[in-house]
């Protein structure tokens, strides 16, 4: 079977003419316009589908707003008052007839004690023409609509109408209610085999009436006594296929309403012999007749219209009459009278049930059916704006409070960490403790400052840099300052002060700043030759002399070391071969930086010898600068090239080179005692005279043997040919 559900996804109050899909072959003379219209209908469907998909995939669904609105809905009784309103539902199968008699008997019944607030009028077989079926022509509905409006007593306005071939549903409301109606929408669902038995299906209109949601379905189900299961299936198909799509892309089905009404020619019959039915009608024995009614038995067994109710029937079957008479079908077919035309309702579990005012048939004789109507009292929820505003604000406030309370919180033992005095190559560690003082797990991490990539200055280490704490848990963070050859330049040469601010960030919460400070003891280690010759005084606590004043020819610290070894250790066996003692070397370094004499401390000559090597190693740039490294390697095979290379060294570097080579030659002259060989010295000193920049790829790996030899060769030339200098 063909299922041509087309949803009206716009919240419009205009009737959208609906074009049923044309599936017939073209032999039937369907116009091009009709086909185009059908294609439009298809397009519309496609559009709608993609729109829905887009919406469900939207990652930015505002869940907060959604949550608040759900809560608001839960608290509805706190800000609404209930008021009784009445709804009139009428249904009439007009058998393709045009309006010819006044509708007053149906719509303006003098027995009606109150004027309904809402009228919902449904027709079936309004139009049995091929045009309606194939072209979606809805012109036939206009005279009926005009006819209805002229019959309504009082000030009514049309809210919405919707048509599917012969099935038309119109909703009218009292003008005063119109501003309080929102989200009025309609949809249709077709069932049955088109063109064979006339189109069957349903039309639905939904709206919010004040704060109460109402949905009305007018349907025409399949005919004939035997088609009970078919009708049950029609009902389920219509119920499933009718959908309303709200502005924000949410889909509402028919059951998601406070009050759901289902009217129409449901076509259920009475499976008794014709004569028996007619006898009972004559005796007004409607009760026993009703017990045989197919709709009643189907509903009772739960086979259709589950959860729906129907007001008690106390009127004769409304089908089938000889049109214009009070006689039931006298044709050859002699159709057995039946209650085809019905009004059912279903109230949501969360809403208050309706009150039945009336359920009646009306003696209009145009058609082979009699019209039927039911009136109900509905408790309409009306919003008290001030109360709603208050409830809304309370919800929002509560949410804010919960959100703020659920943010992590921590205390930190100190926001200032003063490392005081920091010495070269001497790590100092301070600890701070953070404690989770919030209600939730706190995840923390140090984050870099804006537009920076590192968490902190290179001389500082943080451990750990991230972690988590359960409530009340404490974690100790270790901050370590360690200034090495690479990082000392900032303080020794550039005169930077030692401080930093760390940002400790709690996930979903606040940031803590931790200020780091320290005083770096300036040192001749990790310095530059160029800088050191500008210190005639001890480097610690002094500033360099202005660059236009006379500089030293070599760093005085170098002179002090060499001078000491010259007078105290040149004959020492294992000089430059044996290791020094770390503690002693720290003392020596202190003396060099402070200008204190070596006589105040005790140390072995090997500590002084190693200090010389460490000093040279720590230079920010070695004696042979980085930019001459490759040239130096290339020159190493030829003494003359080496001589040329050295002659191009910067002045201070040249002085130092000259001075140290001279010293090493002097040391070699005592090789009887100190057992040193030129090869040994060349290897040891070449590694500190000559090294690749730490930024260059060569520095990433230990040098190859061939490189080591080239470096040593360069020094060796000078140690063995005294006239090279």
């Amino acid at each position, binding site marked *: 079977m063909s299922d041509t559900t087309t949803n009206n996804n716009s919240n419009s109050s205009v009737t959208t003419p609906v074009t049923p899909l044309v599936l017939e072959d073209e032999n039937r003379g369907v116009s091009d316009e009709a086909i185009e219209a059908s294609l439009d209908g298809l397009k519309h469907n496609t559009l709608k589908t993609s729109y829905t998909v887009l919406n469900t995939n939207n990652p930015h669904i505002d869940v907060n707003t959604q949550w608040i609105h759900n809560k608001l809905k839960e608290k509805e009784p706190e800000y609404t008052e209930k008021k009784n309103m009445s709804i009139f539902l009428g249904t009439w199968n007009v058998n393709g007839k045009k309006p010819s008699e006044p509708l007053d008997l149906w719509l303006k019944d003098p027995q009606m004690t109150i004027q309904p607030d809402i009228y919902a009028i449904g027709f079936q077989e309004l139009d049995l023409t091929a045009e309606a079926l194939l072209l979606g022509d809805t012109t036939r509905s206009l005279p009926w609509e005009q006819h209805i409006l002229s019959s309504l007593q009082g000030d009514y306005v049309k809210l919405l109408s919707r048509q599917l071939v012969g099935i038309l549903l119109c909703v009218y409301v009292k003008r005063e209610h119109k501003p309080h109606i929102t989200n009025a929408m309609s949809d249709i669902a077709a069932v049955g085999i088109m063109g064979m038995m006339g189109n069957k299906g349903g039309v639905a209109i939904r709206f919010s009436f004040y704060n109460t949601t109402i949905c009305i379905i007018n349907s025409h189900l399949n005919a004939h006594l035997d088609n009970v299961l078919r009708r049950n299936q029609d009902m389920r198909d219509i119920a499933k296929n009718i959908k309303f799509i709200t502005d924000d892309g949410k889909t509402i089905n028919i059951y998601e309403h406070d009050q759901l009404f289902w009217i129409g020619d449901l076509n259920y019959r009475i499976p008794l012999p014709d004569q028996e039915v007619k006898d009972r009608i004559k005796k007004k024995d409607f009760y026993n007749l009703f017990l045989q009614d197919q709709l009643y038995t189907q509903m009772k067994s739960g086979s259709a219209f589950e959860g729906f109710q129907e007001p008690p029937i106390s009127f004769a079957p409304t089908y089938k009459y000889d049109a214009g008479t009070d006689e039931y079908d006298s044709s050859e077919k002699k159709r057995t009278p039946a209650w085809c035309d019905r009004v059912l309702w279903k109230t949501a579990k969360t809403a208050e049930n309706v009150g039945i005012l009336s359920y009646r048939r009306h003696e209009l004789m145009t058609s082979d059916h009699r019209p039927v109507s039911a009136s109900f009292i509905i408790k309409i929820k009306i919003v008290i704006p001030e109360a709603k*505003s208050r409830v809304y604000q309370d919800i929002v406030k509560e949410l804010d409070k919960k959100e703020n309370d659920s943010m992590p919180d921590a205390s930190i033992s100190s926001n200032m960490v003063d490392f005081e005095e920091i010495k070269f190559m001497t790590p100092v560690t301070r600890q701070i403790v953070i404690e989770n003082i919030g209600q939730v797990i706190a995840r923390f991490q140090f*984050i870099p*400052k804006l537009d920076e*990539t590192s*968490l902190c200055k290179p001389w500082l280490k943080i451990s750990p840099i991230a972690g988590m704490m359960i409530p009340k848990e404490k974690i100790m963070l270790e901050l370590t300052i360690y200034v090495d050859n690479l990082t000392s330049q900032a303080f020794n040469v550039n005169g930077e002060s030692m401080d930093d*601010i760390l*940002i400790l960030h709690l*996930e979903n919460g606040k940031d803590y700043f931790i200020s780091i400070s320290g005083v770096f003891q300036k040192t001749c280690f990790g310095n530059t030759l160029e800088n050191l010759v500008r210190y005639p005084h001890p480097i610690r606590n002094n500033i360099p002399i202005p660059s236009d004043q006379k500089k030293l020819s070599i760093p005085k610290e170098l002179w002090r070391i060499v001078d000491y070894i010259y007078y105290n250790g040149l004959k020492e066996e294992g000089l430059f071969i044996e290791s020094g003692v770390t503690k002693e070397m720290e003392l020596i370094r202190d003396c060099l930086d402070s200008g204190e004499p070596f006589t105040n401390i005790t140390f072995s000559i090997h500590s002084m010898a190693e200090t010389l090597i460490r000093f040279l190693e720590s230079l920010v740039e070695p004696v042979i600068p980085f930019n001459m490294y490759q040239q130096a390697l290339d020159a190493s095979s030829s003494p003359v090239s080496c001589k040329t290379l050295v002659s191009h060294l910067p002045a201070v570097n040249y002085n130092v080179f000259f001075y140290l080579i001279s010293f090493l030659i002097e040391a070699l002259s005592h090789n009887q005692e100190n057992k040193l060989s030129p090869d040994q010295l060349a290897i040891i000193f070449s590694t500190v005279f000559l090294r690749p920049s730490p930024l260059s790829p060569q520095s990433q790996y230990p040098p190859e043997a061939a490189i080591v030899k080239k470096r040593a060769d360069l020094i060796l030339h000078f140690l063995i040919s005294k006239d090279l200098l």
Partner: protein
Amino acid sequence: MNNNNKIFQFKLVLLGEAAVGKSSLVLRFVRGHFLDYQESTIGAAFLAQTVCLNDTTVKFEIWDTAGQERYHTLAPMYYRGAQAAIVVYDIRSEDSFERAIKWVKELQRQGSPNIVIALAGNKLDLAAKRKVETAEAQQYAEENGLLFMETSAKTAQNVNELFVEIAKKLPKTPTTRPGSGRLPITPIDNNAAKKKTCCNGN
């Protein structure tokens, strides 16, 4: 339908000299209380608070920053991407007013292009010791297109009003992105952290 509206979310930052009452204003607005001794903020505190207007709802993500000058260079982390700022001074201190003006200039130069700035002269409960005249601040605010109010976090005077005025002035465009402006935790290496993802996707 009244109130059945979308929630617009905005990032708001408080700036101003130390001890002018930034944290107190936030606490008064969010928690509704006041502490005589409010610890100084060393870092940046984060809180959320919603303001209901007649036709819209505005949710503020509030960043309360450290006022001490030594942390000045870190402030852009917090005002970057902020759609609103409250620059606070103490009506008893000319210096704090001068500092506020500097903050306003910095925001106008480096803040978000359409940032809504409010100037708040706090500690109105101590008006007896006033040094900054209302008219002077009012004039400055008008000349620079700022909202202006004198407030007291202690008595709550004008505190809600200040936030409501800001909420009203903020543009309610559909592009206002819902969702948190807070920083996500991302794995980073020591000394080689990834660039910080700052609020509102900057």
